[in-house]
C-alpha cells in the first residue's frame, strides 16, 4: 500500500517521539487529499493507545490495525478512538472494519454532539447522505463537552476486557473577558495527558486534540474552503470565534506541529498564517448557501453541462490554432506555427479535460456520487484556471471565446463555493447589442485593408496574418440577417453575458447545420424579446437537451428567460428580457 508522504515535519507511517511529550510516540498516516478518507494518527503511551480519526479507507485501516495489534502485543494496553468530529470520512471504517468489533474493540470518544449523531445514525450531520451512505448506530462511551458534564467525570468499565478508568476534567481557559476556550483534560495513566478543546465552526462537534506539542486540528484548516464551507453544521460565527481561539493557542502554548484531518502536516507558524488568511475569508461567507445532497445534485449537473461547454469552447479555440499552424507550416512559416502552438499549454489543458471526462464516465457508470463529481469539477476548474491564466490565447483567438471560458470557470468556482454568480444588470438598447454581436461574429479580426497597411512591417504583418488565419468565417456559408424592431427600446440585463449567450447560440445553430439564420428583436409591454430562428431542412433539428438546459441557465444569469420552439423545420430560440 502506498500513502503519500504528508510532511517533512514527521515521518509518515513511521514511529517517532511526540515533540514535547517524552512518554508518547506517534505513527502518522497522512494521505493525498480526497473526500473518501481523512488522515489518521496513532499515539502510543505507556498506558494507552489512541487512534485519532480512523478515516474512511479500509486499506488505510488495515495498516493501522496491524500496527496497533503489533504494539498492543508487545505491551498490552487499552485502545481508544478519538474523533476530531463525526464526519463520515473520519470514521466510516468504524462501521465495518473488524478492528472495531469483538471483545477487544477500542473505546470511542467524541464531542457529545457528535456522539449523539453517531448513536442516532444521523445521516445528515455526519454527511453520510452526501455520499449516499446509510449509517448504523455507533456507541460512544466517552463524550466531551456534554451539557450535563460535572467538573470531573470518571468513565469506568467502558471497555469490557481492559476495563480502563479514564478521568476527564473540565479546565476552561479564559483568553479574555469575552473569550473562553472550553477545554477538557483526559488522564488515563500517570504520564498520559490529552487535552481536548471545543472549537466548533466546521461542525458543531469539532474538537482539537493536543498531545505534547502536537495539535490534531481535524478539518479546521479547510473549514472556509469551497465545497466545505456551508456544509450542514457549519457556522460562520462559530468558526470566526474558533479561529481566534486556535490562534491564541498557537501563540501561547507550546504547540509545534498541527496535524490536519486532510493534507500535509503544518508547522505551528505555518498554521498561524493559514488561520489568519482564513479569518479574512470567513468574513465573506455570511451568505453562503447550505451544502447538502440537493446542492451536490444541482452542482454535479451544472458541472457536467459546464465542462461539456468548456471542453467544446476550448476544442474550438485549440482547433483553430492547430488549423492555422497547419496552414502556416504549408506556407513554410514553421517558426510562426510553433509560436502559435506554444501560446498556451494546449496539450496540458486537453489532458486536464480528458481527466474530467474519464471521471465523468465513471460517475455516469454509477461509481461516483454527485458530491464527488462536484468536487472533481472544482479541482479541474482550479487547474484549468491556473494553466489558462498563463496563456496568451487572446492575442490570436477571438477575445469573446477566451472570455467565455474564463467566465464559465469563474461561474463554476462561485457556485462550487456555495454562492450564486453575480448578474451585472444594466440598461442598454437591445438593437445596438444584437447588431454589435452579429458584427463581431461575421467580421474578420483583421481586414484585407489592415493586411495591406501592415505589409511593410514584417513583425506586425505576421501577427496580423496569424490572427487572420486563426479566424474561422463560420457565417460565410450561413449568413445571419438581423431584423431590428421598428422602435428601439432598452432592456435591463447583464450585457456581457447576454452578448455571449447570443453569440454562442448563433454559433451552435450554424455549427449544427442551421440555415437562413435570422435574428429579430421586439417589445411587448414590459418585455423585450430576441428571437433567433433557423431552418434545419432535411436533417431534422438536433439540439441536445443538455445544451438547451445549459443555455436556459446561462440566460437566467443574463437576467432573462430562454425558450425554444420547433415548428416544422424551423427552430426558434426566444430570449425574454425585462424592458423599459
Amino acid at each position, binding site marked *: 500500500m502506498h500513502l503519500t508522504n504528508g510532511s517533512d515535519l514527521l515521518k509518515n507511517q513511521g514511529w517517532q517521539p511526540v515533540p514535547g511529550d517524552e512518554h508518547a510516540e506517534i505513527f502518522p498516516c497522512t494521505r493525498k487529499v480526497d473526500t473518501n478518507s481523512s488522515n489518521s494518527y496513532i499515539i502510543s503511551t505507556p498506558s494507552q493507545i489512541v487512534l485519532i480519526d480512523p478515516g474512511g479507507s479500509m486499506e488505510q485501516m488495515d495498516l493501522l490495525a496491524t500496527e496497533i495489534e503489533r504494539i498492543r502485543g508487545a505491551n498490552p494496553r487499552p485502545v481508544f478512538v478519538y474523533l476530531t468530529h463525526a464526519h463520515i470520512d473520519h470514521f466510516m471504517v468504524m462501521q465495518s472494519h473488524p478492528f472495531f468489533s469483538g471483545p477487544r474493540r477500542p473505546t470511542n470518544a467524541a464531542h457529545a454532539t457528535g456522539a449523539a449523531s453517531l448513536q442516532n445514525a444521523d445521516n445528515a450531520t455526519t454527511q453520510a447522505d452526501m455520499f449516499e451512505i446509510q449509517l448504523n448506530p455507533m456507541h460512544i462511551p466517552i463524550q466531551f463537552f456534554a451539557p450535563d458534564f460535572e467538573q470531573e467525570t470518571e468513565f469506568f468499565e467502558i471497555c469490557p476486557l481492559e476495563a480502563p478508568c479514564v478521568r476527564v476534567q473540565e479546565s476552561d481557559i479564559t483568553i479574555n473577558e469575552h473569550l473562553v476556550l472550553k477545554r477538557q483534560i483526559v488522564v488515563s495513566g500517570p504520564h498520559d495527558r490529552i487535552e481536548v478543546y471545543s472549537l466548533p465552526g466546521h461542525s458543531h462537534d469539532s474538537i482539537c486534540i493536543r498531545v505534547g506539542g502536537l495539535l490534531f486540528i481535524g478539518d479546521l484548516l479547510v473549514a472556509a474552503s469551497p465545497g466545505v464551507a456551508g456544509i450542514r453544521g457549519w457556522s460562520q460565527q462559530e468558526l470566526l470565534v474558533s479561529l481566534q481561539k486556535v490562534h491564541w493557542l498557537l501563540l501561547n502554548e507550546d504547540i509545534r506541529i498541527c496535524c490536519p484531518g486532510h493534507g500535509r502536516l503544518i508547522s505551528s507558524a505555518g498554521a498561524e498564517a493559514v488561520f489568519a488568511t482564513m479569518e479574512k475569508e470567513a468574513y465573506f461567507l455570511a451568505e453562503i448557501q447550505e451544502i447538502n445532497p440537493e446542492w451536490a445534485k444541482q452542482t454535479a449537473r451544472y458541472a457536467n453541462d459546464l465542462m461539456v461547454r468548456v471542453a467544446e469552447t476550448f476544442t474550438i479555440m*485549440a*482547433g483553430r490554432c*492547430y488549423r492555422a499552424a497547419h*496552414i502556416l507550416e504549408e506556407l513554410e512559416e514553421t517558426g510562426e506555427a510553433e509560436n502559435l502552438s506554444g501560446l498556451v499549454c494546449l*496539450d496540458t489543458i*486537453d489532458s486536464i*479535460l480528458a481527466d474530467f471526462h474519464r471521471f465523468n464516465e465513471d460517475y455516469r457508470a454509477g461509481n461516483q456520487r454527485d458530491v464527488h463529481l462536484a468536487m472533481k469539477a472544482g479541482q479541474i476548474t482550479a487547474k484549468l484556471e491556473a494553466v489558462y491564466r498563463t496563456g496568451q490565447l487572446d492575442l490570436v483567438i477571438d477575445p469573446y471565446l477566451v472570455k467565455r471560458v474564463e467566465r464559465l470557470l469563474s461561474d463554476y468556482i462561485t457556485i462550487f463555493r456555495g454562492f450564486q454568480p453575480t448578474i451585472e444588470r444594466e440598461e442598454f438598447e437591445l438593437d445596438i447589442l444584437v447588431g454589435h454581436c452579429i458584427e463581431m461574429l461575421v467580421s474578420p479580426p483583421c481586414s484585407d485593408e489592415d493586411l495591406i497597411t501592415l505589409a511593410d512591417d514584417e513583425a506586425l504583418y505576421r501577427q496580423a496574418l496569424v490572427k487572420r488565419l486563426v479566424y*474561422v468565417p463560420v457565417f460565410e456559408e450561413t449568413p445571419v440577417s438581423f431584423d431590428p424592431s421598428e422602435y428601439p427600446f432598452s432592456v435591463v440585463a447583464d450585457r456581457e453575458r447576454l452578448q455571449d449567450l447570443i453569440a454562442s447560440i448563433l454559433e451552435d445553430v450554424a455549427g*449544427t447545420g442551421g440555415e437562413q439564420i435570422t435574428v429579430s428583436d421586439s417589445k411587448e409591454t414590459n418585455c423585450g424579446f430576441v428571437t433567433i430562428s433557423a431552418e434545419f431542412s432535411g436533417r431534422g433539428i438536433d439540439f441536445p437537451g443538455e445544451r438547451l438546459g445549459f443555455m436556459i441557465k446561462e440566460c437566467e444569469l443574463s437576467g432573462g428567460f430562454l425558450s425554444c420552439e420547433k415548428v416544422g423545420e424551423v427552430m426558434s430560440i426566444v430570449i425574454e428580457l425585462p424592458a423599459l
Partner: protein
Amino acid sequence: MYTNTSHREGVAIIALSGGIDTDAAPKPERELTTLVRKGNRKILLDFSEVTSISSSGLRVLLSTSKKITDPQVKFGFCCVGPEVNEIMKLTGVTTIFTIFSSVGDALDEWK
C-alpha cells in the same frame, strides 16, 4: 477507441468508434501510416461511430494529413455526426479535409 479497417473498391476504410482524444488519437494515426506504407492510395476515415473529438484529436488528424506527402494519396472522412461536425465546422478544419456524407459518396467520388 476502436478501429476496424476494411477494403472496398480499392479504398481502405478505417472505421473509428468512441471519442477521439489524447489517449485515443494515436491509434488511427498508426493505422493510417501503416496503410500508406503498404501502398494504399485511397484512405477513408469512417466517423459513423465517433461520439466526440477533442483538440488533441483534431491536432493528430491535422498532423496525420500533413504526413501524407504523396499527392496521389486520397484521404478523407465520411459519416461525421452532428456533434463532431459542429466542432470541425467551428474550427474551420472542414476546409482542410475532404468530407463525404457517406461511404458510398466517397467511393463514387474516388472511382
